[in-house]
């Protein structure tokens, strides 16, 4: 009886972990040059090509850092040197293409090619800076914060 219960709990844990992992991927790092790291919760790891990204992750680059990212809605980021970028919100239904995203630029530079979220949901792909919120309307743009 006890064995069955433990096995059941293990199964439930495995299933929920698998579900969380597959549901959580919002994009991945395609390229890294120079110093760059990903802050995920309390863990800080060097950024690596192929690394999966989740909501809440923070990307940081040093003086020579560059990072390229693709998202599941086909939007793309290029992050420049001396940047701190937070993937604050991201929701995308890949069947209906409903969704929204919010990226926070605390400092540095971010170039964006917008994706399906912006194409199919008006003003839903957003970027926040210290003074402003920007909404992309199907476009390629650059946001710079700081010197």
């Amino acid at each position, binding site marked *: 009886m006890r064995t069955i219960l433990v096995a059941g709990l293990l199964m439930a844990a495995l299933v929920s972990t698998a579900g969380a992992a597959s549901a959580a991927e919002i994009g991945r790092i395609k390229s890294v040059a120079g110093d760059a790291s990903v802050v995920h919760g309390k863990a800080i790891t060097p950024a690596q090509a192929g690394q999966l990204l989740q909501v809440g992750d923070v990307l940081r680059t040093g003086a020579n850092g560059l990072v390229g990212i693709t998202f599941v809605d*086909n939007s793309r980021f*290029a992050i420049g040197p001396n940047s701190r970028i937070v993937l604050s919100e991201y929701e995308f239904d890949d*069947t209906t293409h409903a969704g929204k995203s919010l990226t926070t630029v605390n400092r540095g530079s971010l170039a964006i090619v917008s994706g399906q979220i912006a194409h199919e949901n008006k003003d839903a792909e957003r970027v926040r800076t210290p003074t*402003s919120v920007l909404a992309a309307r*199907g476009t*390629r743009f650059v946001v710079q914060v700081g010197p």
Partner: protein
Amino acid sequence: MRPVAPLWAILALCLGLAACANDRVALLSGEGGAPAGGVVVIDPASGAERGQLTDANTQAQLDGGAVRPRPLTEHFDALLSAMPAPPRVFTLYFIEGTTQVAPESVATLDELRKVVTPASDVQITGYTDTTGDAAGNDKLSLDRAIEIRAALVQEGLPVANARVTGRGQRDLRVQTGPGVNEPLNRRVEVILR
């Protein structure tokens, strides 16, 4: 629920970092000749629009005031060198009622074999024509995408972990009314990011 920074905090932050004076947004030309689109600048506290950039190669300061577009004089070449390439889309057609690649799609399959690696970020999206109801077509297109992934794995492509999606009768390749049997709309797109 999200805490909103009061204005004095934003001002303090700007003064402390000497940052906001240089904050700006630049609208570039659309990629590959696409329209430039636009960027709307919104006041975070009130939600009011401060203005827009709508012309390619213009920029505006983000200083909390109204948007005043100016010509853009730089190209951001170093930054844009880090921009990943656009996703590539390969469309495959299948013999009706099977997961067997139609003869005209064999060349596409060969091309995929050359470019897909185990590190590829692959999405497989199924579509249907407009026969049947929308909910049934969502399921059918997903089932088809799952079957196609299995078929591509069988063909030796490293796509076992590809994301699969069914988009039903959305995004018809050939526009038709409801209830139209259209082979070109029964398709699967393999998207490489």
